[in-house]
Protein backbone atom coordinates (compact mmCIF):
# COMPACT_ATOMS: atom_id res chain seq x y z
CA UNK A 1 0.00 0.00 0.00
CA UNK A 2 1.73 3.12 -1.17
CA UNK A 3 -0.77 5.77 -0.09
CA UNK A 4 -1.56 6.61 3.51
CA UNK A 5 -4.99 5.51 4.72
CA UNK A 6 -6.95 8.28 6.41
CA UNK A 7 -10.24 6.47 7.00
CA UNK A 8 -10.72 2.76 7.49
CA UNK A 9 -14.12 1.21 8.13
CA UNK A 10 -14.46 -2.47 9.02
CA UNK A 11 -17.62 -4.54 9.33
CA UNK A 12 -19.77 -1.49 9.99
CA UNK A 13 -23.43 -2.12 10.73
CA UNK A 14 -26.06 0.25 12.04
CA UNK A 15 -29.53 -0.65 13.23
CA UNK A 16 -32.16 1.86 14.19
CA UNK A 17 -34.47 0.53 16.85
CA UNK A 18 -37.89 2.00 16.19
CA UNK A 19 -39.57 0.16 19.05
CA UNK A 20 -41.58 -2.47 17.19
CA UNK A 21 -39.22 -2.98 14.30
CA UNK A 22 -35.47 -2.72 13.93
CA UNK A 23 -34.35 -1.12 10.71
CA UNK A 24 -31.00 -2.37 9.47
CA UNK A 25 -29.59 0.61 7.60
CA UNK A 26 -25.99 -0.46 7.18
CA UNK A 27 -25.38 -4.16 6.72
CA UNK A 28 -21.63 -4.56 6.93
CA UNK A 29 -19.48 -1.99 5.21
CA UNK A 30 -15.74 -2.25 4.66
CA UNK A 31 -13.95 0.74 3.23
CA UNK A 32 -10.48 2.12 2.92
CA UNK A 33 -10.00 5.74 1.96
CA UNK A 34 -6.62 7.09 1.01
CA UNK A 35 -5.37 10.46 2.12
CA UNK A 36 -5.74 13.40 -0.26
CA UNK A 37 -8.38 11.83 -2.48
CA UNK A 38 -11.73 13.27 -3.51
CA UNK A 39 -14.27 10.56 -2.74
CA UNK A 40 -17.96 10.52 -3.56
CA UNK A 41 -20.34 8.21 -1.80
CA UNK A 42 -23.20 7.72 -4.23
CA UNK A 43 -26.45 5.94 -3.80
CA UNK A 44 -30.19 6.37 -3.93
CA UNK A 45 -32.11 7.98 -1.07
CA UNK A 46 -32.44 5.62 1.86
CA UNK A 47 -29.42 3.57 0.86
CA UNK A 48 -27.65 4.53 4.07
CA UNK A 49 -25.11 6.98 2.74
CA UNK A 50 -25.96 9.72 5.21
CA UNK A 51 -25.79 7.16 8.02
CA UNK A 52 -22.37 6.06 6.81
CA UNK A 53 -21.35 9.70 6.60
CA UNK A 54 -22.41 10.27 10.22
CA UNK A 55 -20.43 7.20 11.36
CA UNK A 56 -17.26 8.32 9.58
CA UNK A 57 -17.66 11.77 11.07
CA UNK A 58 -18.03 10.43 14.59
CA UNK A 59 -21.47 11.99 14.87
CA UNK A 60 -23.19 8.69 15.60
CA UNK A 61 -22.11 5.38 17.07
CA UNK A 62 -22.07 2.18 14.99
CA UNK A 63 -24.05 -0.85 16.17
CA UNK A 64 -21.15 -3.09 15.20
CA UNK A 65 -17.85 -2.67 13.47
CA UNK A 66 -15.18 -0.04 13.76
CA UNK A 67 -14.29 3.29 12.22
CA UNK A 68 -10.64 4.30 12.22
CA UNK A 69 -9.60 7.86 11.49
CA UNK A 70 -5.84 8.06 11.01
CA UNK A 71 -5.67 4.52 12.48
CA UNK A 72 -7.42 5.60 15.70
CA UNK A 73 -10.60 3.73 16.59
CA UNK A 74 -13.06 6.54 17.26
CA UNK A 75 -15.23 4.33 19.49
CA UNK A 76 -12.34 4.35 21.99
CA UNK A 77 -12.22 8.14 22.27
CA UNK A 78 -13.64 9.95 25.28
CA UNK A 79 -15.79 13.07 24.98
CA UNK A 80 -12.79 15.43 24.99
CA UNK A 81 -10.88 13.51 22.35
CA UNK A 82 -13.97 13.19 20.19
CA UNK A 83 -14.54 16.94 20.42
CA UNK A 84 -10.91 17.48 19.52
CA UNK A 85 -11.29 15.17 16.52
CA UNK A 86 -14.40 17.03 15.33
CA UNK A 87 -12.69 20.34 15.82
CA UNK A 88 -9.23 19.73 14.36
CA UNK A 89 -9.33 16.68 12.12
CA UNK A 90 -12.70 16.87 10.40
CA UNK A 91 -14.50 19.70 8.66
CA UNK A 92 -18.22 19.22 8.11
CA UNK A 93 -20.35 20.61 5.34
CA UNK A 94 -24.09 20.00 5.40
CA UNK A 95 -26.91 20.05 2.94
CA UNK A 96 -28.70 22.66 5.03
CA UNK A 97 -25.52 24.78 5.50
CA UNK A 98 -26.07 24.94 9.29
CA UNK A 99 -24.45 28.26 9.92
CA UNK A 100 -25.09 29.80 13.33
CA UNK A 101 -27.81 32.34 12.51
CA UNK A 102 -26.88 34.92 15.15
CA UNK A 103 -23.26 35.16 14.04
CA UNK A 104 -21.76 36.96 11.05
CA UNK A 105 -20.00 35.06 8.26
CA UNK A 106 -16.61 35.84 9.79
CA UNK A 107 -17.70 34.74 13.28
CA UNK A 108 -19.05 31.50 11.84
CA UNK A 109 -15.68 30.82 10.25
CA UNK A 110 -13.67 31.74 13.34
CA UNK A 111 -15.79 29.72 15.80
CA UNK A 112 -13.94 26.41 15.23
CA UNK A 113 -10.66 28.30 15.58
CA UNK A 114 -11.85 29.70 18.91
CA UNK A 115 -12.58 26.15 20.08
CA UNK A 116 -9.13 25.12 18.89
CA UNK A 117 -7.55 27.86 20.99
CA UNK A 118 -6.38 30.11 18.16
CA UNK A 119 -5.79 33.65 19.48
CA UNK A 120 -8.44 36.16 18.37
CA UNK A 121 -6.44 38.25 15.91
CA UNK A 122 -4.87 35.26 14.21
CA UNK A 123 -8.31 33.67 13.88
CA UNK A 124 -9.74 36.83 12.33
CA UNK A 125 -6.96 37.18 9.78
CA UNK A 126 -7.17 33.50 8.84
CA UNK A 127 -10.96 33.79 8.68
CA UNK A 128 -10.71 36.72 6.27
CA UNK A 129 -8.21 34.80 4.16
CA UNK A 130 -10.52 31.78 4.00
CA UNK A 131 -13.52 33.93 3.11
CA UNK A 132 -11.59 35.51 0.25
CA UNK A 133 -10.44 32.04 -0.82
CA UNK A 134 -14.07 30.97 -1.21
CA UNK A 135 -14.87 34.20 -3.04
CA UNK A 136 -16.69 36.15 -0.35
CA UNK A 137 -14.57 39.28 -0.08
CA UNK A 138 -16.43 42.07 1.67
CA UNK A 139 -19.27 39.86 2.93
CA UNK A 140 -17.73 39.00 6.29
CA UNK A 141 -20.05 41.26 8.27
CA UNK A 142 -23.18 39.68 6.81
CA UNK A 143 -25.40 37.35 8.81
CA UNK A 144 -26.36 34.03 7.16
CA UNK A 145 -29.89 35.30 6.53
CA UNK A 146 -28.43 38.10 4.41
CA UNK A 147 -26.56 35.70 2.15
CA UNK A 148 -27.84 33.54 -0.69
CA UNK A 149 -27.81 29.74 -0.46
CA UNK A 150 -24.65 29.46 -2.50
CA UNK A 151 -22.94 32.13 -0.42
CA UNK A 152 -24.00 30.41 2.80
CA UNK A 153 -22.53 27.17 1.55
CA UNK A 154 -19.31 29.02 0.71
CA UNK A 155 -19.16 30.26 4.29
CA UNK A 156 -19.72 26.67 5.41
CA UNK A 157 -16.84 25.53 3.20
CA UNK A 158 -14.60 28.20 4.71
CA UNK A 159 -15.70 27.13 8.19
CA UNK A 160 -14.95 23.49 7.40
CA UNK A 161 -11.41 24.51 6.41
CA UNK A 162 -10.84 26.67 9.48
CA UNK A 163 -8.56 24.33 11.41
CA UNK A 164 -6.83 22.75 8.41
CA UNK A 165 -8.64 19.45 8.82
CA UNK A 166 -7.34 16.22 7.32
CA UNK A 167 -10.82 15.30 6.13
CA UNK A 168 -13.73 17.30 4.82
CA UNK A 169 -17.03 15.50 5.14
CA UNK A 170 -19.75 16.89 2.93
CA UNK A 171 -23.28 15.50 3.24
CA UNK A 172 -25.07 16.40 0.02
CA UNK A 173 -23.37 19.80 -0.18
CA UNK A 174 -25.25 20.70 -3.36
CA UNK A 175 -28.62 19.29 -2.31
CA UNK A 176 -30.18 22.67 -1.59
CA UNK A 177 -28.50 24.60 -4.38
CA UNK A 178 -29.40 25.18 -8.01
CA UNK A 179 -27.40 23.60 -10.80
CA UNK A 180 -24.80 26.29 -11.46
CA UNK A 181 -24.31 27.22 -7.80
CA UNK A 182 -23.89 23.52 -7.03
CA UNK A 183 -21.22 23.27 -9.70
CA UNK A 184 -19.41 26.25 -8.23
CA UNK A 185 -19.36 24.64 -4.80
CA UNK A 186 -18.13 21.34 -6.25
CA UNK A 187 -15.27 22.96 -8.15
CA UNK A 188 -14.45 25.02 -5.06
CA UNK A 189 -14.21 21.84 -2.99
CA UNK A 190 -12.09 20.16 -5.64
CA UNK A 191 -9.77 23.13 -5.94
CA UNK A 192 -9.35 23.41 -2.17
CA UNK A 193 -8.73 19.71 -1.78
CA UNK A 194 -5.99 19.92 -4.39
CA UNK A 195 -4.43 23.03 -2.88
CA UNK A 196 -4.51 21.91 0.73
CA UNK A 197 -4.20 18.16 0.18
CA UNK A 198 -7.37 17.58 2.16
CA UNK A 199 -9.33 14.38 1.76
CA UNK A 200 -12.88 15.20 0.67
CA UNK A 201 -15.59 12.64 1.31
CA UNK A 202 -18.98 13.64 0.08
CA UNK A 203 -22.23 11.77 0.28
CA UNK A 204 -24.32 12.75 -2.68
CA UNK A 205 -26.65 11.73 -5.44
CA UNK A 206 -25.58 14.63 -7.60
CA UNK A 207 -24.00 13.29 -10.79
CA UNK A 208 -22.05 16.54 -11.25
CA UNK A 209 -19.80 15.25 -8.48
CA UNK A 210 -18.62 12.34 -10.61
CA UNK A 211 -16.48 14.56 -12.82
CA UNK A 212 -14.23 15.67 -10.01
CA UNK A 213 -14.14 12.49 -7.92
CA UNK A 214 -11.00 10.38 -7.72
CA UNK A 215 -13.06 7.48 -6.50
CA UNK A 216 -16.77 6.78 -6.33
CA UNK A 217 -18.22 4.43 -3.76
CA UNK A 218 -21.66 3.20 -4.70
CA UNK A 219 -23.86 2.25 -1.77
CA UNK A 220 -26.94 0.18 -2.30
CA UNK A 221 -29.25 -1.15 0.37
CA UNK A 222 -26.73 -0.73 3.18
CA UNK A 223 -23.83 -2.40 1.40
CA UNK A 224 -21.00 -1.27 -0.82
CA UNK A 225 -22.22 -2.01 -4.32
CA UNK A 226 -19.04 -1.19 -6.19
CA UNK A 227 -16.05 1.08 -5.97
CA UNK A 228 -14.97 2.82 -9.13
CA UNK A 229 -11.69 4.57 -9.74
CA UNK A 230 -11.62 7.71 -11.81
CA UNK A 231 -10.24 5.85 -14.84
CA UNK A 232 -13.19 3.42 -14.98
CA UNK A 233 -15.58 6.24 -14.36
CA UNK A 234 -14.75 8.22 -17.46
CA UNK A 235 -15.70 5.30 -19.64
CA UNK A 236 -18.86 4.88 -17.67
CA UNK A 237 -20.03 8.49 -17.76
CA UNK A 238 -18.12 9.56 -20.81
CA UNK A 239 -21.12 11.28 -22.27
CA UNK A 240 -21.67 13.47 -19.25
CA UNK A 241 -18.18 14.61 -18.49
CA UNK A 242 -17.41 15.93 -21.95
Amino acid at each position, binding site marked *: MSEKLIVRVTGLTKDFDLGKIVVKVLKGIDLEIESGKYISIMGPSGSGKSTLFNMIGGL*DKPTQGKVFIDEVDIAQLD*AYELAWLRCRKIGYIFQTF*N*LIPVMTALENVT*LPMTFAGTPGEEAVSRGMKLLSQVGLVGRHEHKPAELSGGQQQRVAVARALANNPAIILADEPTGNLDLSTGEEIISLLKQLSQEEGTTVISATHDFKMLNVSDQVIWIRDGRVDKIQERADLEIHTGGMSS
Partner: protein
Amino acid sequence: MRRLIVLPWKKSIEIAYKSIRARFFRSLITTLTLVLAVSFLAFSQVSIDIADTMLATGDPSLCQMLLRCGYDILPGDTSLAASPKQRWIITLSLLVCVVGIINAQLMSVTERFREIGTMKCLGALDRFIVRIFVMEATMQGFAGASVGAILGTTSAFLAALFRFGPGTIDLLPWPAIFVSTVTALATGIGLSLLGVLYPAIMAARMQPVEAMRVEQ
Protein backbone atom coordinates in the same frame (compact mmCIF):
# COMPACT_ATOMS: atom_id res chain seq x y z
CA MET B 1 -0.09 15.93 22.08
CA ARG B 2 -2.20 18.72 23.49
CA ARG B 3 -5.77 17.78 22.76
CA LEU B 4 -7.63 20.61 24.38
CA ILE B 5 -10.78 22.30 23.23
CA VAL B 6 -11.36 25.71 24.74
CA LEU B 7 -13.97 28.40 24.87
CA PRO B 8 -12.74 31.56 26.61
CA TRP B 9 -15.16 33.22 29.01
CA LYS B 10 -15.13 36.41 27.03
CA LYS B 11 -16.23 34.52 23.93
CA SER B 12 -19.02 32.65 25.72
CA ILE B 13 -20.33 35.91 27.16
CA GLU B 14 -20.23 37.40 23.67
CA ILE B 15 -22.15 34.46 22.17
CA ALA B 16 -24.73 34.58 24.97
CA TYR B 17 -25.19 38.32 24.53
CA LYS B 18 -25.69 37.95 20.79
CA SER B 19 -28.22 35.17 21.27
CA ILE B 20 -30.23 37.32 23.63
CA ARG B 21 -30.13 40.24 21.24
CA ALA B 22 -31.18 38.06 18.33
CA ARG B 23 -34.19 36.77 20.22
CA PHE B 24 -34.92 39.97 22.06
CA PHE B 25 -38.69 39.61 22.43
CA ARG B 26 -38.49 36.00 23.59
CA SER B 27 -35.92 37.03 26.18
CA LEU B 28 -38.07 39.97 27.13
CA ILE B 29 -40.97 37.69 28.05
CA THR B 30 -38.74 35.46 30.16
CA THR B 31 -37.30 38.55 31.78
CA LEU B 32 -40.74 40.02 32.37
CA THR B 33 -41.78 36.96 34.39
CA LEU B 34 -38.79 37.62 36.60
CA VAL B 35 -39.49 41.33 36.85
CA LEU B 36 -42.97 40.65 38.16
CA ALA B 37 -41.98 37.97 40.66
CA VAL B 38 -38.99 39.88 41.97
CA SER B 39 -40.84 43.18 42.24
CA PHE B 40 -43.59 41.45 44.21
CA LEU B 41 -40.98 39.96 46.53
CA ALA B 42 -39.16 43.28 46.94
CA PHE B 43 -42.43 45.16 47.47
CA SER B 44 -43.57 42.80 50.25
CA GLN B 45 -40.24 42.76 52.03
CA VAL B 46 -39.65 46.51 51.86
CA SER B 47 -43.21 47.23 52.99
CA ILE B 48 -42.64 45.04 56.01
CA ASP B 49 -39.33 46.81 56.68
CA ILE B 50 -41.08 50.18 56.65
CA ALA B 51 -43.94 48.99 58.82
CA ASP B 52 -41.47 47.45 61.26
CA THR B 53 -39.68 50.74 61.75
CA MET B 54 -42.94 52.54 62.29
CA LEU B 55 -43.91 50.01 64.90
CA ALA B 56 -40.51 50.24 66.54
CA THR B 57 -40.99 53.99 67.18
CA GLY B 58 -43.72 53.01 69.64
CA ASP B 59 -45.71 56.03 68.54
CA PRO B 60 -49.42 55.15 69.17
CA SER B 61 -50.62 57.28 66.25
CA LEU B 62 -48.34 55.41 63.86
CA CYS B 63 -49.54 52.09 65.29
CA GLN B 64 -53.10 53.21 64.71
CA MET B 65 -52.20 54.03 61.14
CA LEU B 66 -50.70 50.58 60.62
CA LEU B 67 -53.81 48.93 62.04
CA ARG B 68 -55.97 50.99 59.74
CA CYS B 69 -53.88 49.87 56.80
CA GLY B 70 -54.60 46.25 57.54
CA TYR B 71 -51.53 45.16 59.48
CA ASP B 72 -52.33 42.75 62.30
CA ILE B 73 -50.60 44.08 65.40
CA LEU B 74 -50.95 42.31 68.67
CA PRO B 75 -50.06 44.13 71.84
CA GLY B 76 -46.38 43.64 72.60
CA ASP B 77 -45.37 42.92 69.00
CA THR B 78 -42.03 44.42 68.08
CA SER B 79 -41.78 43.06 64.57
CA LEU B 80 -44.22 42.49 61.74
CA ALA B 81 -42.64 39.44 60.12
CA ALA B 82 -44.51 38.24 57.05
CA SER B 83 -47.59 36.29 57.99
CA PRO B 84 -47.83 32.64 56.86
CA LYS B 85 -50.38 33.67 54.28
CA GLN B 86 -48.08 36.28 52.83
CA ARG B 87 -45.15 33.87 52.73
CA TRP B 88 -47.33 31.35 50.97
CA ILE B 89 -48.29 33.85 48.29
CA ILE B 90 -44.67 34.87 47.76
CA THR B 91 -43.55 31.26 47.48
CA LEU B 92 -46.33 30.55 45.04
CA SER B 93 -45.46 33.53 42.87
CA LEU B 94 -41.81 32.49 42.76
CA LEU B 95 -42.83 28.93 41.87
CA VAL B 96 -45.00 30.13 39.01
CA CYS B 97 -42.11 32.28 37.87
CA VAL B 98 -39.69 29.31 37.77
CA VAL B 99 -42.16 27.19 35.85
CA GLY B 100 -42.60 30.05 33.38
CA ILE B 101 -38.86 30.37 32.92
CA ILE B 102 -38.37 26.62 32.42
CA ASN B 103 -41.10 26.70 29.80
CA ALA B 104 -39.58 29.64 27.95
CA GLN B 105 -36.07 28.19 28.11
CA LEU B 106 -37.22 24.77 26.88
CA MET B 107 -38.78 26.49 23.91
CA SER B 108 -35.64 28.48 23.27
CA VAL B 109 -33.52 25.30 23.46
CA THR B 110 -35.82 23.41 21.10
CA GLU B 111 -35.63 26.29 18.68
CA ARG B 112 -31.87 26.07 18.74
CA PHE B 113 -31.36 22.30 18.45
CA ARG B 114 -29.72 22.65 15.07
CA GLU B 115 -27.46 25.41 16.28
CA ILE B 116 -26.42 23.29 19.25
CA GLY B 117 -25.79 20.28 17.02
CA THR B 118 -23.69 22.40 14.68
CA MET B 119 -21.62 23.73 17.55
CA LYS B 120 -20.99 20.19 18.73
CA CYS B 121 -19.91 19.19 15.22
CA LEU B 122 -17.43 22.04 15.29
CA GLY B 123 -15.96 20.61 18.47
CA ALA B 124 -17.93 22.23 21.31
CA LEU B 125 -17.96 20.25 24.55
CA ASP B 126 -21.19 19.64 26.45
CA ARG B 127 -20.19 22.12 29.08
CA PHE B 128 -19.70 24.92 26.54
CA ILE B 129 -23.34 24.55 25.60
CA VAL B 130 -24.43 24.55 29.24
CA ARG B 131 -22.20 27.52 29.90
CA ILE B 132 -23.65 29.58 27.06
CA PHE B 133 -27.18 28.95 28.29
CA VAL B 134 -26.22 29.67 31.89
CA MET B 135 -24.55 32.92 30.82
CA GLU B 136 -27.70 33.91 28.98
CA ALA B 137 -29.84 33.09 32.01
CA THR B 138 -27.52 35.07 34.28
CA MET B 139 -27.77 38.13 32.04
CA GLN B 140 -31.53 37.83 31.79
CA GLY B 141 -31.75 37.13 35.51
CA PHE B 142 -29.64 40.13 36.39
CA ALA B 143 -31.53 42.46 34.08
CA GLY B 144 -34.96 41.19 35.14
CA ALA B 145 -34.19 41.03 38.84
CA SER B 146 -32.63 44.52 38.87
CA VAL B 147 -35.63 46.07 37.21
CA GLY B 148 -37.94 44.04 39.46
CA ALA B 149 -36.10 44.96 42.65
CA ILE B 150 -36.07 48.66 41.76
CA LEU B 151 -39.72 48.56 40.72
CA GLY B 152 -40.78 46.72 43.89
CA THR B 153 -38.79 48.92 46.24
CA THR B 154 -39.98 52.12 44.58
CA SER B 155 -43.60 51.08 44.69
CA ALA B 156 -43.23 50.13 48.36
CA PHE B 157 -41.89 53.67 49.03
CA LEU B 158 -44.71 55.26 47.11
CA ALA B 159 -47.30 53.08 48.83
CA ALA B 160 -45.88 54.01 52.24
CA LEU B 161 -45.81 57.67 51.31
CA PHE B 162 -49.38 57.50 50.13
CA ARG B 163 -50.68 55.55 53.11
CA PHE B 164 -48.73 57.07 55.97
CA GLY B 165 -48.03 60.57 54.72
CA PRO B 166 -44.81 62.45 53.97
CA GLY B 167 -43.61 62.05 57.56
CA THR B 168 -42.50 58.47 56.81
CA ILE B 169 -39.52 59.65 54.76
CA ASP B 170 -37.57 60.43 57.93
CA LEU B 171 -38.34 56.98 59.27
CA LEU B 172 -37.20 54.92 56.32
CA PRO B 173 -34.92 52.09 57.50
CA TRP B 174 -32.27 52.30 54.76
CA PRO B 175 -30.05 49.38 55.80
CA ALA B 176 -33.01 46.97 56.09
CA ILE B 177 -34.41 48.16 52.76
CA PHE B 178 -31.04 47.68 51.13
CA VAL B 179 -30.80 44.12 52.46
CA SER B 180 -34.33 43.32 51.24
CA THR B 181 -33.63 44.72 47.79
CA VAL B 182 -30.38 42.81 47.42
CA THR B 183 -32.06 39.61 48.65
CA ALA B 184 -34.78 40.04 46.04
CA LEU B 185 -32.13 40.63 43.37
CA ALA B 186 -30.20 37.50 44.35
CA THR B 187 -33.40 35.44 44.47
CA GLY B 188 -34.27 36.59 40.97
CA ILE B 189 -30.89 35.59 39.53
CA GLY B 190 -31.12 32.30 41.41
CA LEU B 191 -34.55 31.58 39.95
CA SER B 192 -33.35 32.36 36.45
CA LEU B 193 -30.45 29.91 36.83
CA LEU B 194 -32.73 27.28 38.34
CA GLY B 195 -35.05 27.60 35.37
CA VAL B 196 -32.33 27.18 32.73
CA LEU B 197 -30.46 24.27 34.25
CA TYR B 198 -32.66 21.41 33.06
CA PRO B 199 -33.15 22.71 29.49
CA ALA B 200 -29.43 23.46 29.16
CA ILE B 201 -28.28 20.05 30.37
CA MET B 202 -30.84 18.38 28.14
CA ALA B 203 -29.54 20.34 25.15
CA ALA B 204 -25.91 19.64 25.91
CA ARG B 205 -26.37 15.88 26.25
CA MET B 206 -27.90 15.47 22.82
CA GLN B 207 -25.90 13.61 20.18
CA PRO B 208 -25.06 15.95 17.29
CA VAL B 209 -26.96 13.77 14.81
CA GLU B 210 -30.16 13.89 16.83
CA ALA B 211 -29.88 17.64 17.05
CA MET B 212 -29.29 18.01 13.32
CA ARG B 213 -32.15 15.73 12.38
CA VAL B 214 -34.69 18.17 13.78
CA GLU B 215 -36.69 19.78 10.99
CA GLN B 216 -36.81 23.52 11.09
